């Protein structure tokens, strides 16, 4: 009874705060509404006896939403919500898509027949998950770790101020002599050679000799 009341209270909170994310005037408030939604789902996971997952979700999202809020203050317009703000496009199409996906998944939950096999009462799910993580599912766990490492490296590479072809905020565009150009390409390459890589190299031994 108490379990059910708690479950429905946190379910309502999760859905309501999820809806408030896209109705808040301030993006910072939107980030914290999203955090409330994640925290409510984390509590529901704890009620389902998946304590580890629920607490990890709350911890992870607490950090991530704080980063998101700081990020929005740094980058976005109107972070404090001083003016009413709605920035939407194709609103009716999006509403229809959301309602249709809700109805489809809810129908799946109501009408599909899933096997009924509740977790036994006496077990310790966290202990079993730990044994699974470092046992049979070690490869999955390791793959997730390597994926996160690759994501970190890729994030640094993408957001670096130094782009591939120069400073990122100047566009970091490809140099135009690398564009295949039928007529002028051989001439330009020939013209580049005196002032190209050989040009700066010539005075340097002399300059070095002059210093010594």
């Amino acid at each position, binding site marked *: 009874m108490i*379990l059910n009341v708690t*479950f429905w209270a946190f*379910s309502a909170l*999760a859905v309501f705060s*999820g809806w408030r*994310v*896209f109705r808040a005037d301030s*993006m910072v408030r*939107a980030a914290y509404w*999203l955090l409330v*939604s*994640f925290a409510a789902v984390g509590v*529901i*996971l704890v*009620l*389902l006896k*998946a304590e580890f*997952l*629920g607490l990890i979700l709350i911890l*992870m999202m607490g950090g*991530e939403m704080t980063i998101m809020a700081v990020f929005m203050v740094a*980058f*976005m317009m109107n972070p404090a919500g001083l003016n009413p703000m709605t920035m*939407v*496009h*194709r609103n009716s199409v*999006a509403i229809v*898509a*959301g309602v249709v*996906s*809700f109805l*489809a*998944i*809810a129908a*799946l*939950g*109501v009408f599909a027949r*899933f096997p*009924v*096999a*509740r*977790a*036994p009462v006496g*077990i310790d*799910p966290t202990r079993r998950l730990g*044994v*699974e993580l470092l046992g049979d599912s070690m490869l*999955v766990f390791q793959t*997730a770790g390597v*994926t*996160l490492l690759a*994501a970190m490296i*890729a*994030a640094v590479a*993408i*957001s670096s*101020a130094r782009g591939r072809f120069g400073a*990122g905020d100047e*566009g*970091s565009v490809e140099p135009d002599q690398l564009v295949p150009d039928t007529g002028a390409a051989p001439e330009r390459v020939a013209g580049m050679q005196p002032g190209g890589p050989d040009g700066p190299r010539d005075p340097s031994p002399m300059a070095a000799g002059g210093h010594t």
Partner: protein
Amino acid sequence: MTLQALVFVAAAIFGIGVYGALSQQSFVMIMMGLELMLNGTILAGGAMWALTTGGSPKGQMLVVVLMTVMAVEAAMGFALVIGVYRVRKADITEKIKRLKG
């Protein structure tokens, strides 16, 4: 706390996420929509683990993988927002309608 109720709630969260990801103009708000969709997915995964697998830890592994997906999505999303902002000075989707800048 039946499976139907849990999937119903998860579907509601997912549907709101779909609405947000499709309707918002700001890149960060689109990311929030995607995260909300993953939030619903995590809830459904946890519900399936608790009520249909008999406590097998492999069900929880699926939720761990979903959390990894969420972290990768957030990292890549922030990096792409910064990259697009550096090159185009754009923070909403309407400013990058063309791929060639």
